């Protein structure tokens, strides 16, 4: 491994040019260069520092649930532009780009699948879809899948990855925190387990609603978790944040 480290320090350009794209990946946490195939085998966890690489909802499906057992719910719900939000780039355009990039209509994948033969309701957020931000669609899909869990009397498993509420739907986005909390409340009254998995990052309105309402909350190592983002806190308190803060 020593020569790898040296290569990282010294001859970066050479590495980038001569190694086929995607064969190696750099760990965003420790900087280690890891072989993609090994990373894949290690379930996208860095063998050097234990950091969980950011992975897609499909990859979570693959890792967590029984092969071929997934049945998607509400795949076609998509965002409208209820506020006609004025922005440098139009909101519908942003949505379209995100849809093209992720091949998905919204920032969350929901449905049911089997986990070691047990059917569970699930929702997995996609950070690459506008930062996993929660607007009307994300809130509605999570609320619906939680209700499905209640109807079918199965547990609910949620994988969060989000910077928080979606600004382009303003107050409607804020209200999704209430809507999803109401759904979790019903789940609780039905005495069904809710397992919440926090991945990098889980902050803002998502952290302050369903993500922190689980019966069991599991966080991926080194994931950024908190309410306010580090930049906002730094600006507020005007000082450097403690090492490992919110991780």
């Amino acid at each position, binding site marked *: 491994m020593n020569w790898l480290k040296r290569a990282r320090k010294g001859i970066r350009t050479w590495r980038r040019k001569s190694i086929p794209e995607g064969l190696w990946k750099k760990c965003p946490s420790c900087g280690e260069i890891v072989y993609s195939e090994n990373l894949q085998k290690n379930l996208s966890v860095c063998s050097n520092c234990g950091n969980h690489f950011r992975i897609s909802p499909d990859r979570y499906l693959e890792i967590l649930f029984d092969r071929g057992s997934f049945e998607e719910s509400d795949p076609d719900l998509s965002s409208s532009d209820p506020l006609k939000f004025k922005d440098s780039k139009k909101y519908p355009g942003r949505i379209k780009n995100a849809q093209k990039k992720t091949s998905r209509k919204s920032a969350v994948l929901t449905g049911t699948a089997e986990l070691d033969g047990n059917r569970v309701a699930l929702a997995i957020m996609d950070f690459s879809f506008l930062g996993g931000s929660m607007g009307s669609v994300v809130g509605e899909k999570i609320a619906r899948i939680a209700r499905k869990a209640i109807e079918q009397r199965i547990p609910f498993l949620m994988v969060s990855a989000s910077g928080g509420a979606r600004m382009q739907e303003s107050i409607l986005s804020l209200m999704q925190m209430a809507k999803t909390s109401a759904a979790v409340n019903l789940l609780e009254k039905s005495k069904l387990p809710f397992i919440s998995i926090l991945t990098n990052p889980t902050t803002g309105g998502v952290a302050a609603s369903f993500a922190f309402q689980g019966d069991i909350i599991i966080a991926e190592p080194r994931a950024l978790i908190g*309410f306010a983002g580090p930049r906002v806190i730094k600006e507020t308190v005007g000082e450097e944040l403690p090492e490992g803060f919110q991780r």
Partner: protein
Amino acid sequence: MAVGKKRKLEFESPVYDLEEKIEAGRQRGLEPDSAEMKKLAGRLEELEEKVYSGLSPWEEVQLARHPDRPTALQYIGEIFDEFLEFHGDRYFGDDPAVVGGLASLGGRRVMVVGHEKGRNTRDRLKRNFGMASPEGFRKSLRLMKLAEKFSLPIVSLVDTPGAYPGVGAEERGQSVAIASNLKNLFDISSPIIVVIIGEGGSGGALALAIGDTVLMMEHAVYSVISPEGCAAILYKNKDKAPEAASSLRLTSSDCLELKVIDEVIREKHGAAHRDQHGNAEQIKRVLVRKLSELEGIPGEALLKKRVDKFSRIGIFNG
């Protein structure tokens, strides 16, 4: 109305100029029911109507944050006959950014909670400008549970720029505190009436804003992010906050149109900071009416309706 050390916004000047004229007339010894004074008073009413309507969203934000706008404690003092304040979250401490306690409203016993921004510089510093820490949210939940135990209705007065984004607040679980308010407020079987009295800032506001009726003062604002925060993200420039305020659709009429709130409470004399007592009376009237409507609904039905109410909010395709 005393003029002088009032802090005024630019667009308010015509109103204050006219008031100065009226004051000058009074000092000249003109009787209030003299023809000239009556004419001036009439003009003042018209002017208030004109100056405080059709405002831009950014002007609405400034009114919502007006330094003389009545705070929760000021309204509590006016609206309720008695108020016994309770403190502390029984874990860490007392957060002065959130207040609450037992109160009576025309013979009814109620629990009142709210964000308190503070009335002067010293008070504002002490109360962290109404930005609550986890202790504040936990105190509010504690008091609302107490209200439920004794079958008391709850009044919540919302006025905050947002939850406090500080190191200590994060360390003591800001997310968990808000999340737990949001989940548990769907369990409190007492009627909850929410009034957004000034700023409804983000998750810190919502943590006190789950209720059976959500009311909003005419010049209050309610938003997922401050216009400044939005401008910093969208335009990388906080000076563009006025534009961001328009984009965010944060005024009371916007919120009514988007079906986020149930009713707008009209402000007297143009805006709340111009008539604390009169506007407290406006709130009181609506509170009494809403309490009568909600009383007698069985707890179970109330909770189901509350869940349905918030489950309906959102606009999307499909």
